[in-house]
């Protein structure tokens, strides 16, 4: 695929502040900008899981928030809930629960999921009500905008925006091409 615009490059590098799955030494890092209420992100969730199973230690996965709150009224709170869970070391557990229950993202649902994950409920409710993690979510969103994220889900493969479809086969091929390219440069 032609790499055209300077806008198609990830402008915010992956750091320790990110939510990361997979080894730092993996040849490919896949960054997703996603929205927990977006049905396409729900589809992509299963694709990413399958890619991680297929590629093992060759893939590092990063999730960043990109809630479009005017079309997805529950997306902002869901993102903050994931961060609140992350503050107790359970970001990915909450991330999975949210994507598996996209039709039940009311605040009462979020609290229920927190309880099921064994989170400190009082702390979770206080953080959600106080929007403690709103700034983090907004920072993810704005960083995405500056990287040319224009909707969800948007993927970056080693920092290049993936503009094709995000089905398993297409993403796998794009990632394997990048693995080969990285191997060639080493």
């Amino acid at each position, binding site marked *: 695929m032609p790499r055209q615009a300077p*806008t198609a490059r990830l402008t915010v590098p992956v750091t320790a502040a990110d939510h990361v799955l997979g080894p730092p030494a993996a040849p490919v890092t896949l960054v997703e900008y996603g929205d927990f209420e977006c049905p396409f992100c729900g589809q992509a969730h299963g694709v990413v899981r399958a890619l991680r199973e297929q590629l093992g230690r060759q893939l590092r996965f990063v999730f960043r928030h990109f809630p*479009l*709150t*005017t*079309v997805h009224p529950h997306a902002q709170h869901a993102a903050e809930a994931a961060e609140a869970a992350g503050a107790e070391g359970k970001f990915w557990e909450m991330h999975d629960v949210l994507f598996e229950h996209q039709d039940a993202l009311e605040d009462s649902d979020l609290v229920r999921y927190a309880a099921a994950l064994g989170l400190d409920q009082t702390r979770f409710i206080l953080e959600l009500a106080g929007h403690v993690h709103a700034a983090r979510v907004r920072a993810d*969103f*704005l960083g995405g*905008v*500056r*990287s*040319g*994220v*224009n*909707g969800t889900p948007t993927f970056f493969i080693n920092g290049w925006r993936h503009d094709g479809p995000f089905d398993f086969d297409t993403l796998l091929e794009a990632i394997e091409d990048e693995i080969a390219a990285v191997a060639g440069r080493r």
Partner: protein
Amino acid sequence: MDRTDYTSRAPAAALAAGTKAPDFALNTTPDQAVSVSDFSGRPVVLVFYPADWSPVCGDQLALYNELLPEFHRFNAALMGISVDGVWCHLAYARDRKLKFPLLADFEPKGSVAREYGVYRHREGVTERALFVIDSGGTIRWSYVSPIGVNPGADGILQALEALPAKEKAACPDKHPQPG
């Protein structure tokens, strides 16, 4: 069939940076018109899009709606323009909870889009085009996206950042209180 050549005075391509932005008065509601000159003293972001309700437009405008606080930090006014009529715009804006005006380039159809060089004669809709106009009414940045591609907002934000600092200052008070 109407064979009037509306194109004779229209630019062949989108007006480029450095061009004076053509002024216009377009309705945003049945009884309210908006023009670029209304925003004299503030940068203006003009977003031409092909049609209300089409999927890419929805994503694009939803993104800009989300970014209104950023545009306001630059003291910029954001406006959408398409050839849809005011009632269509009102229904669409309400459905999508858009908090910025949508202007109806409806009659004569596409006349403002033609002046900006972003009318698609074959389809009778506007291009998916972005213009950043400075507070003096000069176009500082323009971009035409492939019609099916959401151009995002990074180009707009970069163009606003590139404006001189005075552009981005708080809106001057045009009606100071006496004394």
